[in-house]
């Protein structure tokens, strides 16, 4: 019974091994050029500290774009298997998919009307 789980164990060993190898290899072979950016908590993105008065403001445009991307990404993920099985699901599948796309477009309509698609 548990023999079925040997491949999973092997996968774990491979995964940990690869992680260990990558970190080790980077430590030994990577160049060490320390500068100000290197010492930041993140090398890119928002400066976490010090915050300006009142918590500060930061642009959320990229986050909005990312969330929108996920909404439509999910739609596509769902559309492909549906397209493959379309001939078997027939009208039922078509109606269900129309309903699904309809609900996704509700989210789209909300973002569009509330200014989520304007960059400035």
């Amino acid at each position, binding site marked *: *019974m*548990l023999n079925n789980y040997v491949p999973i164990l092997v996968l774990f060993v491979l995964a940990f091994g690869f992680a260990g190898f990558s970190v080790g290899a980077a430590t030994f072979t990577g160049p060490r050029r320390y500068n100000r950016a290197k010492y930041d908590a993140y090398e890119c993105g928002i400066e976490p500290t010090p915050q300006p008065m*009142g*918590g*500060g*403001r930061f642009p959320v445009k990229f986050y909005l774009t990312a969330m929108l991307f996920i909404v439509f990404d999910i739609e596509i993920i769902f559309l492909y298997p549906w397209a*493959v*099985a379309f001939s*078997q*699901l*027939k009208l*039922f*599948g078509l109606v269900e998919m129309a309903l699904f796309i309809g*609900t996704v477009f*509700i*989210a789209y*309509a*909300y973002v*569009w*009307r*509330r200014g989520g698609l304007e960059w400035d």
Partner: protein
Amino acid sequence: MPTDIQAPEILYGPLSPMLIVFAAACIGVLVEALAPAARRRGIQVVLAVGGLLAALVAIIVQRGARTLTAGDAIAVDGPTLFIQGVLVVLGVLSILLLAERGLDGSGGAVVARASTTPGSREDMRLADSDAMQSEVFPLAMFSLGGMMLFPASNNLLLMFVALETLSFPLYLMAGLARRRRLLSQEAAVKYFLLGAFASAFFIYGVALLYGYAGSVDAGKIFDATGDVGSNDVLLYLGLAMLAVGLLFKIGAVPFQAWTPDVYQGSPTPVTALMAACTKIAAFGAVLRVFYVAVGRDQWDWRPMMWAIAILTMVVGAILAVTQTDVKRMLAYSSVAHTGFILIGVIAVSKAGLSGTLFYLATYGFTTMAAFAIVTLVRDSSGEATHLAQWTGLGRRSPLVAGVFAFLLFAFAGIPLTSGFMAKFAVFQAGTAGGAGVLVVVGVVASAVTAFFYARVVVLMFFNEPAADGPTVAIPSALTATTIALGLAVTIVLGVYPQPMLDLADQAALFIR
């Protein structure tokens, strides 16, 4: 080439209550997109209340439905319909609380514009305006839809989807308080992080149970528990991890850490929704998992649940004694109540199931009314939730303090309140089901809870009010309806509980 794919049979009638609520939520999003800003709030309230009432009608029409549908993924049976009915009525009450705006001349408990920086000049200006983030209504509807699906899911993957559907809007709504916004946002982040952690346990448990039974269907898992020679380690590990996710949502010890912070920080109407509806829905899912999927293995999971029930009752009751904030006290009291309700779950009998359903209904209405009262007691900075500020409230506003005292007695389980009948029902089922020790612990814990409820009553009625104490706002019809209905149900189910007990009894049969 794909092999044969069968479109599942879908019975739209039994699904109609959930479909109506989800449709109303989707239309709510469209209203946010298309309606002019000034009219959104009014449209949203009518739409949400109308949708929930339509769902209630659909539930009444479908009251005889006992069926599996959508490829056996959804079970519409007695417990499902009972819980959905209670959820829909409580949902209407919480929408009414969210819509209240007459308490301090501002736009209500929900933030005017969530994107403003807390404490900024714009935030100060908007706090006293009558604007509100009216997205909260569709969010509440999505959450309620998820809650209705949660106890109906006969398939663990669907149960996970329902769990996330009810949780995500709650995480958001927890951060939308109009005042003390940083506290509210802190609550939202805590709730989200801990909730995501619990969800991860849940889904890993589902994976292990799939490894055990070869299916995520509750019925198939039940069949697999009857087979000799299957790998029980997977079953126990999977069930334990599944239980972590579920016990987190009902707020059982040791997964209760989020409860006081989140209850305190959230806008009070949202706290009411969380305390009443989420708990009911999550208990529905707990019942479905433990009665349907692993009902045959009760001798294996009962010791675990015994320990959790005892811990929950004792820790909830004792920590509630030390609280100095009304909302935190109610949070710990809800933890203790979770322990009492778990006695009904552990009984694993028809009486245990009907007692649990009855307890959930009574607890929901009492909780809703209690949090509605909390929204009324205010000072210049919003709600006055510190217990010291409630000193002498009975002198100043005898009616509100009297109603709150009555609700506290119901929580404590004093006879002639619904709380007494509910405790009696689950304790009786527990005794009959061989959980006598649990019942003894339950009675002792009830006595401890009665102590701190009585302390609040003494504080309100037998102490002089402070000169600069809070005032009691006059509620509009919205909050008044919520309090009146919650109070009425608490009284009626205490004096004449038989019809509701019969209803719970008729509903108390799961299908597989």
